[in-house]
C-alpha cells in the first residue's frame, strides 16, 4: 500500500508544525522520518494515522483519498513510544483486541482469533508470555507485544512513533535489527519516526530528514550520509567539522586551502561554509600535497573501536578527526605534537542568509 502525502500544512497556534510537506512512500518500503525534536515528524506520522487533522493538504493510501477518514477506518497499525498497552488485559487479549472489536459479520471465530494471536506471538518470539499482564513484562517485550497487536489487524500501513525511544541502548540495538528482519519477512509499508540518526541509518530503506516543518532531504541512508543536500543534513546526520571561508567561481578558499566547489560556479567572493566528516580527516607528519594545513594535537580519546583526536589549526579553529585503532597505533600521536591535517570529501555550501 503506497502513501501519497500532498502539501500538508499544520499549525498549532503560532507554531508552524508542518510547512507544505509532500512525500511519496512506495509500497513495501520502510521509511524513517528523521529530525530533531519539534521538527514535525511525529505530527506528520499522526496525520498519516488520522489522529491529527491537517489544516490543508491531502493523504492518499494507494490512490484513495483518506484525508477525511477516521483513524479506525484507515487500517493503520500504530506503535507508540510508551507502548500504550491495555493494562487490564493479558498479552493475549491485547493482541486479540483489534480482532474482537470487529463487527460480528467480519469477526473471525474464537478459534481463528486464537490461532492468529498465537501465530503473531510466535512471530515476535513471545508466545510463552500469552497469559501474562503488561506490567509483568520488560520494556522490550512490551514493545514487541505492541507491535504484534498492531499487526493483528493486518494493517495496510505500519506507523511507529519513536518505537525504541524508551528502551535502553542494548535492547534498542537488538530490537532495531529485529524490526529490520521482521519487515523483510512481512513487507508491510512502514513509516517510523526517530531522532536517532544511527537508528534511521540502520533500519530504513529510505530516510526523510526533516527540520522545522520542512523536508531537508529524501534518500537512501548512504545518500543522506555521504552526499547531504543541505548544511542541516550534514550537521544532523553524523559528526562534522565546519570551516568558514569564501567561494569564488567554483573554488572555495578555506584558510590556506583551495578546494574545488564545482556546484558553486556562479558565486563570486561569497561567504561559504565547508563541512568535513571527522573520519575524512587525514593526519600526517609530512605535508602531503596542497590540501593540508598545519595543526596541533590537543586531546586524544578512545571510544570503542575508534580514536578521536582533537586538533587546533593556526587560526585556532577546532578540528575533530576519527581514526581507527590500528591507524592511531601506526601514527603514535601525542598531545601537543605538530602535525598536518588533510581533509578529504569536503562539501562547500554558501553561507545561508548572505
Amino acid at each position, binding site marked *: 500500500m503506497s502513501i501519497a502525502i500532498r502539501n500538508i500544512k499544520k499549525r498549532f497556534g503560532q507554531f508552524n508544525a508542518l510547512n507544505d510537506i509532500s512525500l511519496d512512500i512506495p509500497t513495501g518500503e520502510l521509511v524513517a522520518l528523521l529530525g530533531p525534536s519539534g521538527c514535525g515528524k511525529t505530527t506528520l506520522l499522526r496525520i498519516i494515522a488520522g489522529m491529527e487533522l491537517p489544516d490543508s493538504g491531502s493523504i492518499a493510501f494507494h490512490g484513495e483519498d483518506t484525508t477525511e477518514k477516521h483513524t*479506525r477506518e484507515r487500517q493503520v497499525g500504530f506503535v507508540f513510544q510508551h507502548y*500504550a498497552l491495555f493494562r487490564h488485559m493479558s498479552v493475549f487479549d491485547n493482541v486479540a483486541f483489534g480482532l474482537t472489536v470487529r463487527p460480528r459479520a467480519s469477526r473471525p471465530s474464537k478459534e481463528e482469533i486464537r490461532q492468529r494471536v498465537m501465530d503473531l506471538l510466535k512471530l515476535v518470539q513471545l508466545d510463552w508470555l500469552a497469559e501474562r499482564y503488561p506490567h509483568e513484562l520488560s520494556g522490550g517485550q512490551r514493545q514487541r507485544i505492541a507491535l504484534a497487536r498492531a499487526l493483528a489487524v493486518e494493517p495496510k500501513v505500519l506507523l511507529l512513533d519513536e518505537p525504541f525511544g524508551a528502551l535502553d541502548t542494548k535492547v534498542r540495538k537488538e530490537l532495531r535489527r529485529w524490526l529490520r528482519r521482521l519487515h523483510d519477512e512481512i513487507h508491510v509499508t512502514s513509516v517510523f519516526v526517530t531522532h536517532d540518526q544511527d537508528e534511521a541509518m540502520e533500519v530504513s530503506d529510505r530516510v526523510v530528514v526533516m527540520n522545522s516543518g520542512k523536508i531537508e532531504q529524501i534518500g537512501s541512508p548512504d545518500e543522506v550520509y555521504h552526499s547531504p543536500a543541505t548544511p542541516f543534513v550534514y550537521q544532523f546526520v553524523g559528526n562534522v567539522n565546519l570551516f568558514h571561508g569564501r567561494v569564488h567561481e567554483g573554488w572555495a578558499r578555506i584558510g590556506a586551502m583551495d578546494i574545488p566547489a564545482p556546484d558553486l560556479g556562479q558565486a563570486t567572493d561569497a561567504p561559504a561554509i565547508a563541512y568535513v566528516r571527522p573520519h575524512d580527516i587525514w593526519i600526517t607528519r609530512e605535508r602531503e600535497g596542497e590540501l593540508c594545513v598545519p595543526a596541533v594535537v590537543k586531546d586524544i580519546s578512545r571510544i570503542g573501536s575508534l580514536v578521536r583526536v582533537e586538533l587546533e589549526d593556526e587560526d585556532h579553529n577546532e578540528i575533530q578527526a576519527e581514526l581507527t585503532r590500528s591507524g592511531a597505533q601506526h601514527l603514535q600521536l601525542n598531545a601537543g605534537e605538530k602535525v598536518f591535517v588533510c581533509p578529504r570529501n569536503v562539501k562547500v555550501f554558501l553561507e545561508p542568509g548572505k
Partner: protein
Amino acid sequence: MIKKHSILPGFGPALGFTIFYLSLVVLIPLSALFLKSATLGWEQFWATVTAPRVLASYKLSFGTALIAALINAVFGLLVAWVLVRYNFIGKRVVDALVDLPFALPTAVAGIALTAIYADNGWIGQYLAAQGIKVAYTPLGIVVALTFIGLPFVVRTVQPVLADLDREVEEAAASLGATRWQTISRVIFPTIMPALLTGFALAFARAVGEYGSVIFIAGNMPMVSEIAPLLIITKLEQFQYAEATAIAVVMLIASFILLLAINLLQWWSRRRLA
C-alpha cells in the same frame, strides 16, 4: 526476633501510635456500643431489632443509600469526565461547586432541599403538577443523600481519569474500536476500582446521614423514617440499650457491605496492578 534494618525509621512508635489512636477514636466507642446493647439480653435484643418499625427503617436507610450511591456513581462519573476532559469557561467554579456538599452544614442542605422540593417550592410545584411528590417521601431522602454523596465519587474518579493515557485510546481507535468499544473495554475497566471506592464512600456516608434527611423525609413511621432517626427517638425516650441495639445491627450490616465492596475492588485492582 531479629530487628530488621529499614531506611524508613520509626516503624515501632508510628504503629504504636496508630493503634492507640484508632483504639481511642474508633474501637473503644464501638465496643462500648456492643457492651451496652448486650445488657438487653438476647431475646429483648432480637425483639427490638426485628420490630416492624425498625425493620422498615433499615430497609429505607439501606435502600435509599444504595439508590443514591448508584445515582452518584453514574452522574459523579459524568461530572468527573466533563471536568477532566473538556475545557470551558467557569470550569474552576464548577470544580469548586463539587466540594460544596462537603462543607455545607447538613441541616442547611436539608432545609434548602426541602424548600425547593416541597409542593410549593421552585421545582416541587412542577413535579407536584405531574403527580410526583418529592419532599416528605422516600424520594426526598434519595435526593438529600444524592446531594451529600456527590463529591465522593467525583473526587475519587477525577485523578484516575486525569492520569488516563490518551495514547491508549488512540491505540484502540487505530485497532478499529468504535468510541463505545473504547469506553467500555478500555477506559471503564481502568477507572473501575476508583469508581467502586467512590461508590463505597458515598454509600457509607449516605447510610449514616442524619441532618439533611430529617428535614426532607417527613419522618412518618414505616414510610419515611430512617434508622438514625429511630435511634435518636429511642434515646429521647431514655431507651439507651434499645438505641444501641439498632445501631449495632446497622454497624454490622454496613461493615459487611463495605467488606464486600472492598473485596470487589481488590479483585478488579489486582488485574490492573
